[in-house]
């Protein structure tokens, strides 16, 4: 049974819980796989390190939390320090290159690009940094197709912001492919 474990981490307010929910929704509703999303839930939701965990599997999922992380997104140095300890050998780490300067050592692939600045400068709104990051995670993990992930994004955002999120998702996806080449 293929069990794939993702963790989206950063600071409270960066939209990482939402990014995790959309990833899980893409897998569960659009890709036809099984998926569970859970999150740390507490004072850290209002600042400090926050995380959202997603398990994706072909078969039914028992334990809903990460045991050994296949893919980690870290949007702050604090989150990177706190949540990279259980990153699997051969796994993937995606960080915002402007915010995470000290990278953990280990036998995994690290991909970095300026995620928040991509949202701010290339998409035009910093608020969609989470969707840029989601696009990148979709590209790097290969657990859901680009099309299905995009469907999940578009079904999760308000009508007026569809184009903005579409652009953010596409840029994140393409930049991750570029950065990991």
């Amino acid at each position, binding site marked *: 049974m293929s069990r794939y474990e993702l963790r989206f981490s950063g600071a409270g307010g960066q939209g990482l819980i939402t990014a995790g*929910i959309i990833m*899980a*929704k893409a897998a*569960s*509703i659009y890709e036809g796989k*099984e*998926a*569970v*999303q*859970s*999150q740390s*839930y*507490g*004072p850290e939701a209002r600042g400090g390190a926050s995380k959202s965990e997603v398990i994706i599997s072909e078969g039914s*999922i*028992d*334990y*809903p*939390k990460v*045991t050994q992380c296949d893919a980690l997104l870290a949007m702050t140095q604090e989150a990177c320090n706190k949540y990279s300890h259980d990153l699997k050998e051969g796994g993937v780490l995606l960080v915002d290159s402007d915010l995470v300067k000290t990278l953990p050592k280990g036998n995994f692939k690290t991909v970095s690009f300026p995620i928040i600045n991509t949202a701010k400068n290339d998409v035009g709104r910093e608020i969609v940094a989470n969707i840029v990051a989601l696009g990148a995670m979709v590209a790097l993990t290969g657990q859901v197709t680009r099309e299905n992930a995009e469907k999940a994004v578009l079904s999760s955002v308000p009508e007026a912001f569809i184009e903005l999120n579409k652009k953010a998702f596409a840029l994140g996806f393409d930049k991750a492919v570029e950065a990991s080449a």
Partner: protein
Amino acid sequence: MSKKVAFLQGNEAASYGALYAGCNFFAGYPITPSTEVAEVMSVELPKIGGKFIQMEDEIAASAAMMGAALAGFKTFDSTSGPGLSLKQELIGMACISEIPCVIFNVMRGGPSTGMPTGPSQSDVMCAKWGTHGDHPAICLVPSTVQETFEEVVRAFNLSEKYRTPVLVMPDEIVAHMRERVVFPEPGEIPIEPRRTPTVPPEQYKPYDTSFGDVPPLAAYGSGYKFHVTSLNKGQDGFPTTKAEWVQAEEERQVRKVEANADDIIEFEEYQLDDAEVVVVAYGSTSRSGRYAVNEARKQGIKAGMFRLKTFWPFPDKQIKALAGKVKGFIVPEMNLGMCSIEVERNAQGKAPVLGINRVDGEPINPDQILAKMKEVI
């Protein structure tokens, strides 16, 4: 036609389960980690002509739901530990007055306000013994989001069938995690109707046992006038201290649930056929248990799991039968040992019962269970 699917939190699924079961009245007071239930009900109930009331506190919320239930509504309420403590007085009244209602209690750290955002399973004894006096108790403990939907529907059915309050109690992990829910079509899960009187109003008695252990319940406002009290009562609903009535009524109230335990108790047996070590678990902890059983089997350990879906009445018969066959029970739970008391009571010394207990707000991970299995084998 394909069924409607959605990616939902356990709490959201609970609300849709209540609506599926015909709930048309919600009275509550918001509390972490169950507030999403009230949020969904506040949006959905007005659309179907139902009533949503946020009361001034948890006690008033319970009183409102019980009043509505007596007026013929199917009522729902959501809360968490501190709220469950406040509600105990009214839960006792619902037991003795035999008022159907469903209370959804998400378990967080306790006692008192404890750890509002941390998961726990430490309310399971409160579900039975929280209110004083002899009384029936039904408590369901779902472990997935889909099951949360289904168990809320079942809770409504049981509360109508046995005319008694029913508790549904997921831990915070199940309540807040998201999974796919496939909604059943209307009618796919049968809905238990309230048994109303067949006699004319002048002949009606609210606790008339000539109709069996669960007397029909009229709705206030439908022409039937009857008295409801929290005191011990006679068949006409008026207070009594008449010894034989009080004894008979107390026994009937408990019997209507206990004698139907086989109808109420649901469970899942996982890899039990040749199991030497059996995990007894419920809620999110059973998900860790299943993971551990699978890992143990890979290592050649004959492990299995008995998963509770109904915590009360407790599956005494099933645990007793297992006790004679296994080398030991492992009871992982997010409390300092509550289910393990019940397992020990039923094991009757025939098999050791080893608890794994966490109250630090972290889930019990599969490795802890696997390590404990190796102590038994």
